[in-house]
Each structure stands twice: as structure tokens, then as C-alpha cells.
């Protein structure tokens, strides 16, 4: 069997259906199959990525219809880098959640794993598709699974959060569809490369209107202010591994879609400034809101929005170094925020209290998880020698090269706000007196392995970033090199 990019999506989709059948035969299949599939995804990356990095992008044609007529999947160094990251982090999250919810009925675990699998498949699809309408479909898959996972615990808050998500998400679908519609009427194509080629011929008004619909729709997925109201609710109500997937996979896919459309498909001036301004507003509002949170997962969710804002700023700057920093930050955010949700949910699990008060003095009961959480918190603020420092540093240098002094000062001031609330949280863990009633749940061995692996990643990359900077440079180059993208797909 020849491995091709389509396996990224097909494997988890097939697995999602297989889980339903297999778990009738063997109850634990629901837990095991996702791991195998995600591991297979890592293998795909290991096989395909060297080719991509060496020879350039791989374009996969579906059902024999050549682009631009058929749907094609494109594995560029940029998208390949993200699929690899998503697969690895997804695998770590699976490992972490392997024993998740033993208390519930087997059936529920089955549904949970199916939905999670579909969500990861959809996100991978968004990342590697080369077709606008196909992207819409995958975004819908991600959306629908995400709504149901948000309401997975059948209680009032979950249902409310899910409904909000559904409301905003359906607005996203409508606007996305409208944007695609305008583009299709103007260019007569749905293939991104062909649209990009024909874009100069589209009248300015049509172009900009379509772009605005895309910006709104994909802004919702990429958690951009003011379209991100759904996010904190969804993050905080979803099951814990799902929160990690939201932060590490879904938001990465959302940002990818936004960037791919604005960078490759459209050629509108001013979109960079838009990204910088709205990215900064997103970051500022999110971090300010995070300070006032009393609920741990909501705080982490707002922090996620803030990080996404910084990613958008960096993409908005648009130079090679900035894009490099943005991709680096996407990776760091995926790893670190997944880690924060993983360790954070053990705190919640142990204290029976979703509020921050439940964290008081918890390090005595969970020393390992506390240490992991603290390292991750320091890493996401950007303290050296953790990996978060380098991504922020690159972005700042890129901003400096464009002479944006106020942007730099702004970013760093927001970082101080970030420092304040993370420091408070860590202080609670280590220095406050324990006052809340609690139940004892030691972390399971698989969770420890998963968290240690991601923590090791943070530290190793922080001390020696050269391990991945080469890939990141290629990824940044491939995103910025629009001409060869078009040429390669249309031959």
C-alpha cells in the first residue's frame, strides 16, 4: 500500500465508523482504535514529510479528477508541518485520555471516541485540502462534532455552551458559504490555486466583499474578536481531553484556514493591517478577560484566545521571520495549551470544584501534575529557557524589523497581564492553604507518560530550538511562495 496524504483523513474517518462496529465485539476497542489510527497518522508524516521537505509539495488527486476539476489534497511543508503536529499532539491527547471516564457507561465512551476521531479527521482535512468547498465541508464536520462534544456531559451548562457554539458556528457556515458563492460566480472555480490565479481579474468590490465574508466566517473558527464569544463556554464545558483538542487542533485548523485563504487565495491589500489590528484587539481583550476569571478552564480558554491573537498579529506582519514565528507559536501553543488543559483537568478532577479556589495547595496531592502545569504556564508566558520564549522572540524581532515599536510595547504589556494571572494560578497551587473538600485521583500512568512527553518537548526545544527551526523556515517559505503553489497544482 502506498501511503498518500489522503490517508490522513481517511484513516480517522474509517476508524470512527469502525469503532462503532468493533466495540460491539470487543468493548475496549473504542479506546484502542483511535490510538492506532493516530499512530498511523504519525507514520504517514514520517514517510511523507521527508519527501515534501526535499522535493516540495505533494498534490494528491481524488478519484482521478485532475485539479482544477476535481478535489485535490495538498501537502506543502506548511500544511505538512501542521498535520504532523496535530497527529503527534492528538496521539498524546489520546494517550492522556485513554482511561478517561471509566465511571461512565461503555456506550458513552464509544460516542466520545467517535466524535473526537471525527473532529481530528475534520481538522486534518481543513489543513490539507486544496479546495474551498471541501474546506467548507471539513469545517462543518469539525463544527458538528464540536457542538456535540461540548454538550457531551448532559447538563444545563454544557447544553447552553453547545447552543451558543451552534448559533455562532451556523453563522460561520452561512457566511463561509456566501463567500464561496461570490468567489465561484466570479472565478468559476472552487480550486484554491485556480481561484488564486484568476483573482487579479475579479472586480475589487466583489473581491473585498467575498474576503469580508471569509474573514468573518473563518474568524469565528480562528477565534478572532469579536466573533469568539462561543469559545470560553465551549472550552470550559467540553470534556477535558476535548478542551485540549479544541486548543491544540481545532483552533490551529481554524487559523490555518484563515491564513490560507487570506494569503494564498486572495490578493487584497490591507488584510495584513486588518490581521494585526484585530489580532491585537483579540489578544488584549482576551487577556484582560482572563485576569478576572474564577474558573480554571475558562481562564485557560481566554488565554488560548490571546495566543491566537498573537498568532494572527504575526501572520499580519507577513515577513518571512514573522510567519516563521507565527508557525512556531502555533506549534508551541498547541503543545503548551494541550498540556495546560491536561494538567488543569486533573486539578478539577481532584478538587470537585471548577473554580480556581479548588487549586489551593494542590501540589501536596498532585506534585507531578503541579510541576507540569507550572512549567507549561511559564512556557506559555514566554520565559526562557522554554520553547514559548523563542516563538515570542521571533515575532518581536519581526515586528522590530518592520519598525512597529508600539506593537512591540503592546504585545509585551499584554504579556505582563498574562504573567499576572498565570503567576496567581501557580501561586495558588503552591502557596495557598488548602481549604476545599477534595477527592483523591492520582494521575494514571498513561497520562503521566503523555504529559512528560509534551513537557520534554517544551524544554528540549527551548534549550535547543535548532531541532525544528529548519522545518519552520521551509514551512514559512512555502506559505509565502504563492506562485509555486499555483504552478505546482495547475501544472
Amino acid at each position: 500500500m502506498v501511503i498518500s496524504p489522503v490517508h490522513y483523513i481517511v484513516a480517522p474517518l474509517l476508524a470512527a465508523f469502525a469503532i462503532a462496529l468493533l466495540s460491539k465485539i470487543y468493548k475496549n476497542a473504542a479506546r484502542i482504535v483511535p490510538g492506532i489510527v493516530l499512530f498511523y497518522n504519525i507514520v504517514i508524516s514520517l514517510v511523507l514529510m521527508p519527501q515534501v521537505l526535499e522535493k516540495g509539495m505533494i498534490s494528491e488527486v481524488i478519484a482521478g479528477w485532475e485539479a482544477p476539476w476535481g478535489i485535490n489534497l495538498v501537502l506543502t511543508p506548511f500544511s505538512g508541518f501542521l498535520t504532523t503536529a496535530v497527529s503527534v499532539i492528538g496521539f498524546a491527547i489520546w494517550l492522556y485520555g485513554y482511561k478517561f471516564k471509566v465511571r461512565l457507561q461503555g456506550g458513552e465512551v464509544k460516542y466520545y471516541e467517535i466524535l473526537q476521531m471525527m473532529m481530528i479527521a475534520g481538522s486534518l482535512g481543513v489543513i490539507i485540502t486544496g479546495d474551498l468547498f471541501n474546506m467548507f465541508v471539513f469545517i462543518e464536520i469539525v463544527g458538528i462534532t464540536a457542538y456535540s462534544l461540548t454538550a457531551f456531559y448532559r447538563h444545563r451548562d454544557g447544553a447552553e455552551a453547545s447552543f451558543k457554539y451552534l448559533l455562532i458556528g451556523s453563522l460561520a457556515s452561512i457566511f463561509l458559504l456566501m463567500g464561496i458563492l461570490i468567489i465561484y460566480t466570479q472565478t468559476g472555480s472552487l480550486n484554491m490555486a485556480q481561484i488564486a490565479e484568476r483573482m487579479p481579474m475579479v472586480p475589487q468590490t466583489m473581491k473585498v466583499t467575498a474576503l469580508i465574508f471569509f474573514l468573518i466566517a473563518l474568524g469565528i473558527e480562528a477565534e478572532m474578536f469579536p466573533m469568539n464569544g462561543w469559545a470560553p463556554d465551549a472550552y470550559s464545558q467540553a470534556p477535558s481531553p476535548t478542551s485540549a483538542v479544541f486548543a491544540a487542533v481545532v483552533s490551529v485548523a481554524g487559523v490555518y484556514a484563515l491564513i490560507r485563504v487570506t494569503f494564498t487565495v486572495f490578493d487584497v491589500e490591507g488584510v495584513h493591517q486588518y490581521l494585526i489590528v484585530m489580532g491585537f484587539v483579540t489578544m488584549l481583550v482576551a487577556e484582560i478577560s482572563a485576569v478576572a476569571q474564577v474558573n480554571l478552564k475558562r481562564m485557560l480558554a481566554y488565554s488560548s484566545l490571546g495566543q491566537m491573537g498573537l498568532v494572527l498579529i504575526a501572520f499580519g506582519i507577513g515577513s518571512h521571520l514573522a510567519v516563521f514565528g507565527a508557525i512556531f507559536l502555533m506549534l508551541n501553543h498547541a503543545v503548551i495549551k494541550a498540556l495546560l488543559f491536561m494538567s488543569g483537568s486533573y486539578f478539577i478532577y481532584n478538587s470537585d470544584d471548577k473554580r480556581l479556589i479548588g487549586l489551593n495547595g494542590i501540589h501536596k496531592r498532585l506534585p507531578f501534575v503541579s510541576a507540569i502545569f507550572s512549567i507549561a504556564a511559564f512556557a506559555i508566558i514566554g520565559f526562557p529557557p522554554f520553547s514559548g520564549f523563542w516563538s515570542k522572540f521571533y515575532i518581536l524581532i519581526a515586528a522590530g524589523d518592520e519598525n512597529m515599536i508600539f506593537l512591540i510595547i503592546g504585545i509585551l504589556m499584554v504579556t505582563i497581564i498574562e504573567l499576572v494571572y498565570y503567576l496567581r494560578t501557580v501561586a495558588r497551587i503552591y502557596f495557598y492553604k488548602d481549604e476545599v473538600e477534595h477527592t483523591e485521583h492520582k494521575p494514571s500512568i498513561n497520562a503521566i507518560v503523555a504529559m512528560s512527553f509534551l513537557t520534554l518537548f517544551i524544554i528540549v526545544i527551548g534549550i535547543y530550538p535548532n531541532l525544528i527551526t529548519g522545518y519552520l523556515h521551509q514551512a514559512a517559505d512555502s506559505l509565502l511562495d504563492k506562485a509555486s503553489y499555483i504552478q505546482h497544482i495547475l501544472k
Partner: protein
Amino acid sequence: MNTLTIILLILTIGAAFTYFINAVNHKLTAISAFVTITIATGYFFGLAELGDQFKFALGDFSMQWGLNAFSYYFIYIVLGLSWLALLYSIAYMEGKARLGYYYGAFLLTIAGMFGVVISQDFISLFIFWEIMTWASFLLVIYNYYYNIKTEGMKYMIFSAIGAYAMLTAIVFIHHYYGTFLIGEALSKGAFSFNQHIFIPIFLLLGFGIKAAVMPFHVWAPGAYAKTPMSFTAVFSGALSKMGIFGIALVFSTYYITHNAGGFIASQILAWMGGITAVMGTIYALIQTDAKRLLAYSSVAQLGYIVVGLSTGTKLGIMAALYLAVLHAAFKGALFMVAGAVEKQAGTTDMTKISGLIKRMPWTFLVALISIITLAGVPPLGGFVGKWLIYEALITESNNYFLAIVIFFSSTAAFLYSYRFLFGLFLGQEEEDTKDVKEAPVTMLIPMLMLSFVSIITGVMPGLVFNPAAKAMNALGFADTNWDMTSLSNIWGNTTDLSLIGIFIIIVFILGFAVLTLKGRKKTKSVGTKDISSSGELWKEGENWTFQQDFFKPFQRAAAPLYKFDMDKIWSDMGNALEAFFGFFRKVYTGNGQTYAIYVIAFLAILLIFKDYIFN
């Protein structure tokens, strides 16, 4: 492998090893830490040579560590003082909890400081700066529960502001000069104020916060006082000197290539230093806790050093470098004294204890010598430093008014010096300190060694001037020759200091003889409660002890100065911001309909203004 990297490795691996060995056997923790620092110090002074360099690439940046005379000078402070403080820690920290945490963070802080000093590019400087900051933060919050909310948070936030100011400057140095190497940036005139105003300002902010310059000093008193005293000696003695290191590095380039007189940043710096010196002293006066008194005094002393740096003349910078070493010596010793008193008597509250001289004579001796040095009284080393500062201010930069300010400050410093000595050691003995014992010998040795530095520099300041002159050479100042035992001013007058040494010895021998011959036989020892009231009945709550309201008249006279409370201004600002955040976060109403309206409204806005936004 390079000596510098080996020393960094020794320190970091030693820190990890010390942390983990505590779990095995907590008696080995202190020994492991002490052995680590001894190896590192020995290795450095034995094998490291000027000009050692280590180059490598990290990310897309080339990094460079190296040793020149300037960094060597500061390594004397860093490694020397740390070695003594760790020796002191062994007895001081004995029996306390979390020793692995303490010693591990201590060694990591030393590694951070060492790294800062040997960095020759801005990225490693920043990384080590941050490591140093959070490692020392771990020590500030060592005394658990009450510290984190107030002092730890304050320290971390101010440090972060400083670090990020520095980062901004670094990013812009890269933007304008295309390099991160300090030497290269310096040679391109990176810090000239006229070219890129904000680079020196941001760098000054970054380094100034670590040096606790007003109005960013508010973290310092609390952090110094709440940290275990064994670390505060290093904190105030060496860690805050990193700020001085940075300012000297950055500003001297400007002074050399440009005319210092017209340099407005140096004026700002001078006045910041001057105000720091005065306000630090004023606040030190009213403290009742010896640790806080020393902490404020530390702030004030760093003010002098900053003033010296700001003059930009050879003499001024020399004075600053000289005072940096001396401050490390005497303030290190004084914090160790406070620690010894705290350990032996249980408190450092000057209203609660007094008359410890009989119980802790050696500690008193150290305190006396260090206080004399601090006050700048001849014949000890502090005098030389003060003299140089005055001379630099008056003769070389014509800054008479600032000289008066400094003079006021150092006169007022006598008051708190006196109070420190008197409050803790002199006066009547309290009943409940009768069975206090002298500090253990491993605590006394470092204290006495530091006092020895104070004494020897009074007689032979050349011991410090020589390396300082070399350091200034490395900074680019033309060579300055300093005689070992004499001080010369610009008119060519020379003061021979070797006589002073003879006098010290004579005075000490005489004093010792008088004390032993005359003894205390004729004096009667009385307790604090043993007071004759001449037949008057004293009322309940009436103040009969001198320890209460020590400087009440002065306090009354200087009352307006105390109204200016920077601490309150900052905390008000913090509270206001937090309230604003609390208000602002209501943007997220939690209502799905509102969110939908946001989306639609935003779409409408974009569509209406699309011609403006997207050209």
C-alpha cells in the same frame, strides 16, 4: 570544552543534583551546594583566563560568551559573595524545611548571574537575565504563604516590566544595527541617545529596575526583607549589581564616543540616582525592623552607585565600580549580621531586642566595621568611595546641587546606621535575650571575611582600583593608573592611606587595652525595665524605652517627605487596572444572542467601511 561553559554546567548540574539529593538525605544538601560553588569558584579563578570565548548558534542567531576584564570584575562580586553566602547558609538554614529547593534555586541564581556577566550577545544576556530573575523569585517566595501575594508578585511584575523593556530595546538594536552581539552593537554606536531615543531609555528601565532605582524600587525592600537573609546578602550585594553592570556597559560607550555633558539621559539617570539615595535613606530611618532598614539602605546605596555612573567621567565610573564591590562587602556582611541576630535571638525587630553586644560580640564587631564602611567614615573603605563620588560630582561634572543631595543623604545615613547598631547591640539588655548565644563559627567566618574587605580597602584601595581600572579599560576608557595605597585627585594632591592603616591598628590595640584594663567593672548593668522614675508614678502605656519612636523628632520634621509613598501609588494603579479589567471583561456577556449580534454588527461594519479598510 570551554571553561565558561564548564562552570555554567557545574552550577546547573550542581543545582539539580542538590535539589534531588535533598530527597535522599537532607544533611547532604548543604554540603552538595557548598561543594558545587567551591568547585565552580575554584575552577574559575584557577583556570579561566581573560579572552576566553565560546561561540555557538541557537535558532538563527549566533551567540557568544566571553570573559573580559569588565566581566571578570563583576565575577569577583558574583562568585566571591555567593561562595561566602553559601558558607553562611550552611548554619543559617540548618533545620529549615525545603533545603533542596533553597539550595537548588540559590545555585541556579548564581548560574544566572554568571551567565549575565559573561554574555557577549543580547540574547544570552536576556535569557540569563530571566533565569536569574525567576530563580531569585523562587527564593523570594521561599517563606511560603504570606509572601507570594505581596512581595513575590511585586518582584516578579517589576522584573517582568524591566525584562520586557530590555527585550524591546534588544529587538530595536537588532533592527537598526542588524546584530545581537554587544561588542558589535557598541562599536556601531547603538546606544547613542540622539539617534534612537528609546533604546537607551528602555535599556535604562530594564537595568534600572534590577538596581531598584526610584520610582521602580518598590519591589526591593519587601523582597530583600522577606528572603532568607543568607540569600539577601547575595540579592542585594550581587544580584542588584547586575543592573549596575548593565548601565555601566551601556552608558560608558556613549560617554566615550560623545560628550557626556550634553547627554540628557545621564542627567535623568543622575537625578534618579540622587532621589533614590535620598528617599531610600529617609525611609530607612523610620523602619523598626532591622531587615527592612537594611533593605531601604540598600536601595539608597545603589542610588549612590547610579549617581557615580551617571557622571560619565572616569572618576565617577571608577567610584561606582569601587562602591559596587564595597557595597557587596558591607551590605552582604550587614544582612548576614541581621540573619545571625534573627537566628539567635528570634527576631530582628529593633523595638524588641537590644544590648546583644555582650551575647554576640563578634557579630557586633562585624556590624560595627560594616556600618563604618557604609557611613563612609575614614579610615575604612567606604570613605574612599564617597570621596571619589564627591570629587567626580564637584570637580569633573560641576554638579554641585547633586553633590549636596548626596551629602544630605549620606549624613542622614548616619542616623539609621546609628539606629541599627544601637537598636540591636547597644543599650540595656532585655531580659528575654539573656541566653542568646554567639552565632556559629561558619556564619562568623564569612562575615569576618567581608569585614576584612572593608578594612583592607580603607588602607589599600588599590586592591580594588587595579581590577576596576582594567575593567574600565575593557569598557574603552583610557588606562588609569592607581597606586596601591594612595588616592590622588586632579590637582595632583595625593593622600597617603598607609598611615591610616597604622592608625587603625593603634586605635584597635589601644581600645582593646582600655576595655580590658578598665573593664566594665565600674558600670552597672541594668535591664530595660529597671528604670528609676524619681518617685513619679508612671502611667499605663507610657513610653519608657528608647526603642520606641526612635527618631520621632526627625520624623516629625520630615513628615512631608513621608507622604510621598510610591508603594501606594503603584498599588493604587494596580487596583485601578484590575477594576478596569473586571469592567472590561463584560464584553463577554455569556449571552449567545449578544455574541451573534457582535458577529453581525462586525460584518456590517466591515462591509460599510470596506473601502477604507481594504483599500
